[in-house]
């Protein structure tokens, strides 16, 4: 019994890694610039947003290009994971029709491959930040915790949306629409300090607030999230994570019937 448990867990990780490798390999296949797109995308976004928003920013944010860039990196990971993760069960129907296997590796491999990209981009980002002199070892736990929070929230939400999308294909469209609004509901292009206090509860419901703020603090030393923000964001993250896990678990048995 114990032996089968152990080999099952090992099989899960091997499968997850193989699927992630597949994701990584197939993403830049038939592209000319390959991994260059990893940083080219957020740089282009950053340049445009910087150009536009610097016209009507009342209070300038220190190191605004860097501020934008770190927020965009985090956001790109999140939105790409959700965009690709939500329809992934339907897209990978050929795998699900083949054999009984832990289906959760399908969305998880998408998230993991995006996460590897994200970490690589983050490492490239560190180089210019080193010259800025805002980075110190004391901030490392904040960065680490921000990443854990981001990963937990993305996994929970992707499991939820990918499981629901099998039966209700509306979910995919809903997620697309939501992501556009969500981008502006997260302090990426602006600072949280411009939000009037009576609306603050909205940002407290959005775990991406703390994630972005923790990263901004970690890399650039810009004010960290407050205790109320952080704790309410953590609670939402845990709730979404557990909800996603349980919905995925109960729905995954029936995937084959709906695809």
């Amino acid at each position: 019994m114990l032996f089968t448990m152990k080999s099952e867990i090992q099989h899960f990780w091997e499968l997850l890694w193989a699927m992630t490798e597949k994701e990584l390999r197939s993403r830049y296949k038939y592209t000319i610039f390959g991994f260059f797109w990893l940083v080219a995308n957020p740089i282009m976004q950053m340049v445009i947003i910087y150009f536009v928003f610097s016209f009507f920013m009342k209070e300038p944010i220190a190191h605004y290009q860097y501020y934008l860039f770190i927020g965009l990196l985090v956001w790109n990971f999140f939105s790409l994971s959700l965009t690709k993760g939500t329809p992934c069960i339907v897209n990978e129907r050929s795998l699900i029709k083949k054999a009984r296997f832990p289906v959760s590796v399908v969305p998880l491999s998408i998230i993991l491959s995006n996460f590897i990209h994200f970490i690589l981009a983050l490492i490239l980002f560190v180089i210019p930040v080193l010259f800025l002199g805002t980075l110190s070892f004391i901030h490392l736990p904040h960065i680490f915790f921000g990443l854990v929070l981001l990963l937990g929230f993305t996994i929970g939400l992707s499991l939820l949306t990918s499981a629901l999308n099998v039966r209700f294909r509306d979910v995919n469209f809903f997620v697309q629409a939501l992501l556009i609004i969500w981008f502006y509901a997260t302090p990426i292009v602006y600072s949280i300090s411009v939000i009037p206090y009576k609306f603050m509860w909205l940002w407290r419901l959005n775990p991406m607030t703390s994630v972005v703020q923790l990263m901004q603090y970690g890399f650039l030393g810009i004010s960290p999230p407050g205790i109320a923000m952080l704790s309410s964001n953590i609670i939402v993250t845990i709730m979404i994570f557990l909800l996603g896990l349980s919905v995925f678990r109960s729905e995954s048995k029936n995937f084959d019937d709906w695809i």
Partner: protein
Amino acid sequence: MDKTTAIKLTNVSKDYALREKSTLIEKFIKRKNKIFSALKNINLTIQKGERVGIIGSNGSGKTTLLKIIGGITPHTTGIVETYGKIASLIDLEAGFHPDLTGEENIALNGLLVGMNQSEVKENKKKISNFSGIGQFIKRPFYTYSSGMKFRLALAVAVASKCEILLLDEIFLSGDDKFLYKTISWLRGINRRQNLTLVIAAHDPMFVWEFAQRYIMLDHGKIVELSINDVMSIRRKNASLWKKIFPHTI
């Protein structure tokens, strides 16, 4: 159950929910879905090492039965017991990624059918040799012909050391040479390793070379066929063929 049982189905039924439109709002308006019973109260015991042919017209539930045995789709009621590692060849493209090469697909597909990383590495050469698709092994899967896809899928299943093999008739689409190789291999491994074989086909002709026991599915119900029944079905089908294609011999 005794140790010689490979597959045992007790009162197994399978209902599919039918829905014309699948929107979230509709779900809340009318909760009840129409139901289509694909399988009704199936009782079936297959011994280890048996070669079973499942006969039935299109839509009679053959594939659903294979999928339930393989654990790919859940059954609605009843008990499904299987003993031994199962590999299924039901859908030609299943378990393969069109953009990956044959080699890369072997790794993925192997893990999917329950091999571990080291087994995949060990068997990579063997699989590509058995499949006999030559230099195509380094080309993406979408460039493959149906025959090649079949060969690769079968080769992986062979290497996975499965104890129960589920085959749908689509998998009898390889060319003569490969079919011969497949038949002789399946017989050999059936004899040597006590492989349990379940093959679905709409005409007994396709499974004639494999099966020693025949089961007929008719609108979700199961009937055990004697060899005489099978012969009369074959004769009936043969005369039907003559009617459809009067100019062939």
